[in-house]
């Protein structure tokens, strides 16, 4: 623990920590409280008398009901889950294969290919969305989930590859050589010996890829147009705002419920997520 007097502990540890926690978590508290607060309380000017914004005595499920009955929210949830899962699986398969090849096989141009994949990892989605939208239209993929399932791997594969390379490099060569001496082909040695050992890495990459594709916004915003095809972030943005009118109750309920799946996936695999996050940076 921290050395020194009690006041030092408070000044140098508890107080800053509390400030960080309030700063980082208050928006979520505000999201939750707004989701369950009746409209009559929500739209009270900030300076009205006897107004306590931090609590409600009359919680309501009206906004959640509105979300599921008056909008396509459940459809958006399904779309997002489907797109995130399929693109994660595609990216994992590609990333594991590519990571294996780049870290454990020797072949010409291995180094420059690795660098090339690393560079694509750093290409932000906002650099290419306009030409990509045209290409998606030409391939007749516009306004279908496939427009996202095929484009999300562009930012997921490089990161999965990079992460898996780190994992594969750490597995001793002898393990594979033993299997090869026992008569396993290269392919089988990879599939049955090396990949099972790398499961924690695959799990980290998968969790991280799932949250990334759940959170993606600009491709989904540009490639999808009809309300029933949208993902949660885009649906909430475009269907719960009419002109200048924001439906704050349903909006916050949608934000809350749209965050729950990632929060659940995250809470089960915090350690894997953190190692994915830090691994993806350090490589």
């Amino acid at each position, binding site marked *: *623990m*921290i050395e020194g007097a009690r006041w030092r502990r408070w000044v140098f*540890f508890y107080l800053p920590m509390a400030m*960080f*926690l309030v*700063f*980082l*978590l208050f*928006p*979520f508290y*505000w*999201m939750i409280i*707004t989701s369950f607060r009746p409209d009559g309380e929500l*739209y009270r*000017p*900030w300076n009205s008398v006897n107004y306590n914004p931090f609590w409600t005595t009359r919680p309501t499920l009206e906004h959640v009901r509105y979300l599921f009955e008056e909008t396509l929210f459940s459809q958006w949830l399904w779309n997002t889950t489907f797109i995130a899962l399929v693109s994660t699986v595609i990216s994992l398969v590609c990333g594991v*294969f*590519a990571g*294996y090849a780049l870290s454990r*096989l*020797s*072949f*010409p141009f291995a180094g420059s290919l690795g660098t090339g*994949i690393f*560079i694509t990892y750093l*290409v*932000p989605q*906002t*650099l*290419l969305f*306009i*030409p*990509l*939208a*045209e*290409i998606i239209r030409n391939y007749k993929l516009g306004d279908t989930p496939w427009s996202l399932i*095929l484009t999300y791997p*562009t930012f997921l594969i490089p990161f999965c590859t990079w992460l898996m390379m780190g994992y594969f490099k750490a597995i001793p060569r002898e393990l594979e050589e033993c299997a090869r001496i026992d008569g396993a*082909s290269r*392919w089988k040695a990879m599939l049955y010996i090396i990949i099972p050992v790398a499961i924690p890495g695959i799990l980290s990459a998968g969790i991280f890829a799932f*949250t990334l594709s759940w*959170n993606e916004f*600009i491709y989904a915003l*540009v490639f999808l147009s009809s309300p029933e095809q949208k993902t*949660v*972030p885009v649906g*909430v*943005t475009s269907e719960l705002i009419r002109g200048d009118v*924001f439906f*704050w109750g349903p909006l*916050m309920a*949608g*934000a809350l419920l749209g*965050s729950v799946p990632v*929060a659940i996936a995250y809470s089960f695999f*915090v350690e894997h*997520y953190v190692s994915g*996050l830090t691994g993806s*940076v*350090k490589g």
Partner: protein
Amino acid sequence: MAVQAIETTFGEAPPPRRQRLLEDERWLAFMLLVPTMVLLGMFIAYPFARGILLSVTNSRVGVPGQFVGLANYYKIWNDTIFRTAVYNTFLYTAVTTVFKLGLGLWLAMLLNRDFRGKAFTRAFILLPFIIPTVLSTFAWKWMFDPTFSVLNWVLYHLGLITGRINWLGDPDLAMISIIVVNIWRGVPFFAISLLAGLQTISPELNEAAAIDGAKPWQRFWHVTWPLLLPVTMVVVLFSVIQTFADFQIVYVMTGGGPANATHLFATYAYQIGVGTGLLSEGAAISLAMFPILFLVVIIQLLYIRRVEVR
């Protein structure tokens, strides 16, 4: 065929052609890399080339354009909104990076201590980073709402303000608000990555320095910081790229307003390319980010190589 027929007469069946190819290291590597290359080629390399071609034509939505040379680049160069967007992007990236690094490092140092509920705290602290940015930014937009702002309520009851503050209605305040949200979103990423870096530093080094009489600040500056620098560099460069190309926070908070005062490259490219349908001009605006991103990537590659060589 003939060779195979002869070989099969000798008891053991030879491996089929496919398997023999997979035994060859180069072929196996090639096969394993094909799916990745196809996807990245189709949706990164091809769009990139396509974007450059698009930016030297005058295409609009549904109208195939003609070659116009650098006219689009010339046009955006003289566009005052574009210039504001460039200025904003640099300001946004610089200010948020400084704060994210400072606060992230501070938080990482706090988390590197032993205290009750450490795992729990660390898990909660990452929430701003994992929750979809668009959704959490809406919470911020609602907190900054001109009429119902909870921030105004707090400031008013603390006696700091007497009238309301129109956070998103004033260009400077709107920029500050956006910067705050970006810092909020980025601090956990910095903190957790730097914490991972801190944990690789052996505590014995700090103890040895303490025995030699180094004060906490000296210990940080001469022991911890140099050892943390490689991780810090990578995290900063990574974050600079993401921030420089940011879209979501501005799109939700202000949409580039008031009066186009808070645009970044990406939001302005969206407004021109998708909003008004001037595809080629929009492509030119987002490609204008490329030289700077390229520079950062080069620095990062050189740095990683240097660290690996060492």
